[in-house]
């Protein structure tokens, strides 16, 4: 309904340009009608102004984009962040975490190089800040602004934009390096299907209890996250570049609006996955966080969560312990 109103009101404004109404009193002159149609189709003329897009009279596009952002995308990104946190906290309350059965062995197995750990954080820290600031840009006016004074809100949204702009750059490097360098370990295998059926052995009740489906260097859940991140990371970087450097890429106004929507949709997906990823690494999987701190994992963690990988490195002699 609202979008119809917006469309109507814009149409009304267009009438005020004086083209259409010029002929309402008498029979229409076809030349005027034709020009009016061309104007609505974005006809360009001549102007002395150097302003952006100033030679075009009217730019038309699908006005439903505003409703899409306010009624769907903005609540969705709130749900993807805060909703997912609530869901996960409840899940852990009911289900409990995945403990190491044999406790910690104290023997630390080499899993990631120092370089791998650094590119992970090169992407991850900006990603977190981009999520928080992006959420403020998309949903802040609906969810935060009503509760803040104008001055506080202005400060918050200004900071959000600045942080978002600057964090985008390291994020893109992190995304590119991770996507390219880690893809070989993330290829889907047959045993991934079984891992999915058992939800990775993380469910602590019913038929799932105590199960440990096979997993290689990465399990099926991690692979799903990796490819989601690779794909939507690409969309988010590409659309973000259009929005960040319009002077370089010169996107049309309509393309910029499309980029904005694609950017938000990808952001919602990446946000929801990031919350799951962070919960898995820090709380759910005991001993998991160590991998991205030192690059080493406990031997018991390796055999419990990545048995095929551990067997493989033991066999081919690449297994190294921390000295």
């Amino acid at each position: 309904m609202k979008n119809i109103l917006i469309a109507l009101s814009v149409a009304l404004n267009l009438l005020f340009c004086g083209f259409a109404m010029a002929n309402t009193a008498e029979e229409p002159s076809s030349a005027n009608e034709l020009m009016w149609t061309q104007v609505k189709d974005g006809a360009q003329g001549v102007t002395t102004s150097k302003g952006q897009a100033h030679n075009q009279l009217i730019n038309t596009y699908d006005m439903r984009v505003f409703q899409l952002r306010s009624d769907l995308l903005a609540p969705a990104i709130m749900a993807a962040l805060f909703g997912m946190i609530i869901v996960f906290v409840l899940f852990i309350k009911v289900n409990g975490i995945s403990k190491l059965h044999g406790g910690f062995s104290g023997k630390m197995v080499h899993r990631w190089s120092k370089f791998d750990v650094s590119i992970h954080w090169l992407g991850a820290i900006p990603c977190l800040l981009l999520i928080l600031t992006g959420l403020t840009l998309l949903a802040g006016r609906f969810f935060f602004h009503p509760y803040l004074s104008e001055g506080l809100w202005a400060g918050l949204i200004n900071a959000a934009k600045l942080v978002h702009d600057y964090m985008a750059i390291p994020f893109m490097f992190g995304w590119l390096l991770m996507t390219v360098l880690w893809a070989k370990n993330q290829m889907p295998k047959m045993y991934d299907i079984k891992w999915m059926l058992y939800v990775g052995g993380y469910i602590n009740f019913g038929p799932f209890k105590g199960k440990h489906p096979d997993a290689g260097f990465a399990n099926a859940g991690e692979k799903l996250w990796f490819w989601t991140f690779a794909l939507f990371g690409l969309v988010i970087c590409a659309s973000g570049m259009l929005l960040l450097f319009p002077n370089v890429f010169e996107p049309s106004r309509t393309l910029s609006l499309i980029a904005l929507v694609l950017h938000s949709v990808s952001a919602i997906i990446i946000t929801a996955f990031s919350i799951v990823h962070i919960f898995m690494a820090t709380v759910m999987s005991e001993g998991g966080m160590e991998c991205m701190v030192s690059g080493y994992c406990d031997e018991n963690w390796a055999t419990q969560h990545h048995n095929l990988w551990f067997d493989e490195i033991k066999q081919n002699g690449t297994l190294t312990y921390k000295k």
Partner: protein
Amino acid sequence: MATMKFLCDTKRCIECNGCVTACKNENDSALEWGIQRRRVVTLKDGEPGEASISVACMHCTDAPCMAVCPTDCFYRTEDGIVLHNKDTCIGCGYCFYACPFGAPQFPQKSTFGGRGKMDKCTFCAGGPEEDHSEAERLKYGSNRIAEGKLPMCAELCATKSLLAGDAGVVSNIYRERVASRGSNKAIWG
């Protein structure tokens, strides 16, 4: 309350750019170098059927710029004029993408670090600052509405092609003109 609108009679506009100059002069204090709030566009320049039209912000009833702004810094006055708060604006450019008329303009071209504060036609109605304050003059330009006057561009239009005022009044003037034109193909109305 009135609902303020602009109307440009293309049969009268002679592309003299008087409105552009009037606006520039009236709002000079607020306009950064290179920014122009009003422009005249000529279609079919030099061909039969040439027509010129003066455009600035149309003060839309359900304004797209207002709907898209992530900072929610637009507001509508009781006269239906669409204004914005430059202190809250982050220069993201969303309103420029959304505006059908290309009204929002920026001092810088890239969004990286901000394009600077968005500027557009205020219908000579200033901004959120106190009426006729120095802050209002420097950020938004003149405030003729508070003095009971209409925008300078329309007031100075030599052919009275550009009309500004309450939508009902303005469109009545226009309708009378069209009705009394000898033929709708006539150039001078």
